């Protein structure tokens, strides 16, 4: 299976993602933001970081970069596009995913492990993960998911909520909401479930000695479902 990770100036999780994808069997290539074509891929990843210094709004400049047209075309033709953290912000700025990631409610940069509840397994990203709750890492200043009431209704009606912040038992209430995100949303799909944006970093949880292995479950499932 082939994957491509797009590098923007200011991306800083691109190499971690490259290591993670290769560890689980992807043939990964790195693609520069100023290119216009993406090599043949089964998966495109927009990595975490601070693309273009988070100028204007997080992800807004990357959302207009030269490579993005190819990402949008790939996504619209049904290809799998995964955006992690800043990648999620870029996906909302391109309009591929609804809503926006605002500044965290309490104005703090959050860097810690959290639990997330898998809300929808009828998709390639979570299909065969044999757990309901994953422990993953978050590190962001703008992860406070927001959208209009109409959009939220549409997201819920189409089962587009992918994961929500919760406690270790899966309780996804306000007490377990680290950043003020609407409905504890940590990740969402597009209607067709081929595009996933999520704030947590699965690529940081693939080493039993350094972190945990719930990220491994994510990548094992992903390559297995392609």
């Amino acid at each position, binding site marked *: 299976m082939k994957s491509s990770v797009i590098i923007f100036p200011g991306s800083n999780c691109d190499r971690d993602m490259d290591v993670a994808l290769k560890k689980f069997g992807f043939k990964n290539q790195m693609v520069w933001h100023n290119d216009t074509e993406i090599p043949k891929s089964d998966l495109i990843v927009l990595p975490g970081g601070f693309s273009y210094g988070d100028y*204007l*709004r997080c992800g*807004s400049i990357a959302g*207009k970069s030269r490579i993005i047209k190819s990402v949008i075309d790939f996504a619209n033709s049904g290809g799998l596009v995964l955006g992690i953290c800043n990648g999620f912000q870029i996906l*909302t*700025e391109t309009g591929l995913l*609804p*809503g*926006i990631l*605002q*500044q*965290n*409610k*309490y*104005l703090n940069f959050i860097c810690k492990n959290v639990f997330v509840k898998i809300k929808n397994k009828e998709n390639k990203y979570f299909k065969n993960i044999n757990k309901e709750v994953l422990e993953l890492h978050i590190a962001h200043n703008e992860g*406070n998911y*927001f*959208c*209009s009431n109409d*959009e939220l209704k549409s997201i819920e009606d189409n089962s587009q909520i992918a994961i929500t912040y919760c406690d270790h038992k899966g309780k996804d209430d306000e007490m377990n909401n680290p950043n*003020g995100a609407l409905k504890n949303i940590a990740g969402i799909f597009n209607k067709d479930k081929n595009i996933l944006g999520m704030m947590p970093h699965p690529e940081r949880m693939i080493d039993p000695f350094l972190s945990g292995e719930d990220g491994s479950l994510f990548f094992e499932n992903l390559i297995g479902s392609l």
Partner: protein
Amino acid sequence: MKLKVIVTLKNGVLDPQGKAIQQTLNGMTFENVSEVRQGKYFDIEVNESDESKAKSQVEEMCKKLLANLVIEDYKIL
């Protein structure tokens, strides 16, 4: 010609920075400040002499890049 644009958060959208500024002002000598909303200001030089053309271009810029209409409104001054 030069155009000025102000981008602000829509009413009802949480503005934690504005709230922090308001609370800081209240803690100084400005107890009567009841709300602060923070926004962005842009000076845009467009090489275009026709004012209405320039304005409609800037309007496009606002919709496509300068403001995210999910949470922000824009005003061309």
